[in-house]
């Protein structure tokens, strides 16, 4: 990162501990790819309307953890989870869980932007249609405009909604994917390194967007970039070798962490 958009010294982290209710609660969770254990004994609570950043070196399990929260790992054969994850007190790994319904509530933005090979309009319309959210053509158009505006891309695409989404730039594609996720009105937004493939300007736009979305959504963001974690998140969790080393208010994690390992990582001594 060459552009530091906001210096670390001016962290705006709000209250030291958020006063919002717990949205996601994880208790003693272990996760396996076949015989290989990827996450060990994770226990953490994430509060509503708070941005939580997961940081840690490559392969530490932060993305895997993110993907357990909407059961996206289910589509990988041979994966297994132990422990308990609840959202609003509901066990999302209970046998009775409606996985499709869960994913509707827990939206996701991926590391590599993945617009469908359809028009910009159809990219957003897809989620609305499969979930039966639009009552009419004008309702559909209204919702599409609203979500494109929420993802701060409306002005750039409003005159070319019928063009292919794949003609957009990388940063625009990623904001379209965010708009697509927002259109179905999830409660939680998972973001897996959403800006890792983007240039500094596009990254800044995504970060500003996260800041704005916080009032409506509970956001969990995985990032490689510590300045980014510091800039966008209220709370930070540091992972190392499949373990949660420590979590807390972002300011504390970056300036006064309890663990030596965390301090070494955030000060760039390894990773």
């Amino acid at each position, binding site marked *: 990162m060459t552009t530091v958009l906001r210096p670390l010294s001016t962290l705006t982290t709000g209250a030291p501990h958020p006063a919002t209710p717990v949205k996601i609660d994880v208790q003693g969770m272990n996760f396996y790819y076949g015989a290989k254990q990827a996450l060990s004994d994770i226990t953490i609570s994430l509060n509503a309307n708070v941005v939580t950043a997961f940081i840690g070196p490559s392969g530490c399990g932060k993305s895997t953890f993110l993907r357990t929260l909407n059961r996206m790992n289910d589509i990988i054969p041979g994966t297994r989870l132990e422990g308990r994850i609840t959202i609003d007190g509901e066990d999302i790994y209970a046998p009775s869980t409606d996985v499709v319904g869960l994913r509707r509530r827990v939206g996701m933005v991926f590391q590599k932007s993945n617009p*469908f*090979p359809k028009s910009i309009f159809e990219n957003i319309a897809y989620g609305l249609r*499969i979930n039966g959210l639009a009552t009419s053509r004008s309702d559909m158009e209204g919702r599409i405009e609203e979500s494109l505006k929420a993802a701060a891309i409306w002005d750039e695409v409003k005159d070319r909604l019928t063009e292919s989404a794949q003609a957009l730039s990388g940063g625009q594609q990623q904001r379209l994917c965010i708009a697509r996720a927002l259109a179905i009105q999830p409660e939680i937004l998972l973001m897996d390194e959403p800006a890792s493939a983007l240039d500094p300007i596009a990254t800044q736009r995504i970060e500003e967007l996260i800041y704005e979305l916080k009032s409506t959504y509970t956001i969990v963001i995985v990032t490689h970039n510590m300045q980014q974690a510091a800039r966008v998140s209220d709370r930070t969790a540091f992972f190392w070798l499949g373990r949660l080393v420590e979590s807390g208010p972002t300011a504390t994690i970056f300036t006064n962490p309890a663990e030596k390992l965390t301090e070494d990582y955030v000060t760039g001594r390894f990773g």
Partner: protein
Amino acid sequence: MTRQTQRWVEWLIERALLLCAAGSVLITAGIIGALAFETVSFFREVPITEFLFGTVWTPLFYDAQFGVLPLVGGTILVSVIAMAVAMPAGLLSAIYLSEYAPPRVRRVVKPVMEILAGVPTIVFGYFALLFVTPLLQRVLPDLALFNALSPGLVMGIMILPLVSSLSEDALHAVPTGLREGAYALGATRMQAALRVVVPAAFSGISASFILAMSRAIGETMIVAIAAGQQPRLTANPLQPVETMTAYIVQVSMGDMPTGSIGYRTIFAVGTLLFLMTFVLNLISDWLRRRFREQYA
């Protein structure tokens, strides 16, 4: 071996390999040349417009007429029936294999289905004539012994593995990220498969359809055995028809004197057949290349 002999052997091998490669190209060129030569001689005697637009094909009669449309019509009729079987069944089985089947099932079913493609076509031909036609006649009493329907259906089964296998390759090549994007929006497996993965693989799937169509048009034994030898311009699949390939077989097996106009008809029909399948293959190739570029 000395360095000198080694180099000489190397030179010899290189030349031998070049000769082999050049040989197959030259032979192909020779075949096309022979086809073109006889076709040109044919069109010296028969105007090309009569050949292409005439609706009566009686080249062996005293009052010979050379309208190729009945043969083209018979070919298309049988091929369309075959495609009506192979496209939906092939695509559905490809969707099952790519999106639903556990990897273990896929590993077994795919090669087994490809074995179907290795059954000699003459077996399919007798299967159509001696098994499928009598079976169909129980339901359709009007069905002639030789007809377009039965070989069409059997040909559909024959090209089904081609459609299924190539479509499955196309579906499989669609990036996982697109599926995950759909699932993340609350899509069911079917909503992801039908509305995201299949459209994303569209050009690859159409390439498989067109290649299968080309195979159906060029297929010979099934129709020669089970479709009949009556050139007839009809859309009724219950009647006997003659396809272009079946006509070529009929004349080649007969005692047509070399150099006669009847003899030259098979080259004219052969050239037309070659052009039809060649164009379809080009389209299929172009679609496949476009598909590959999309997800390179």
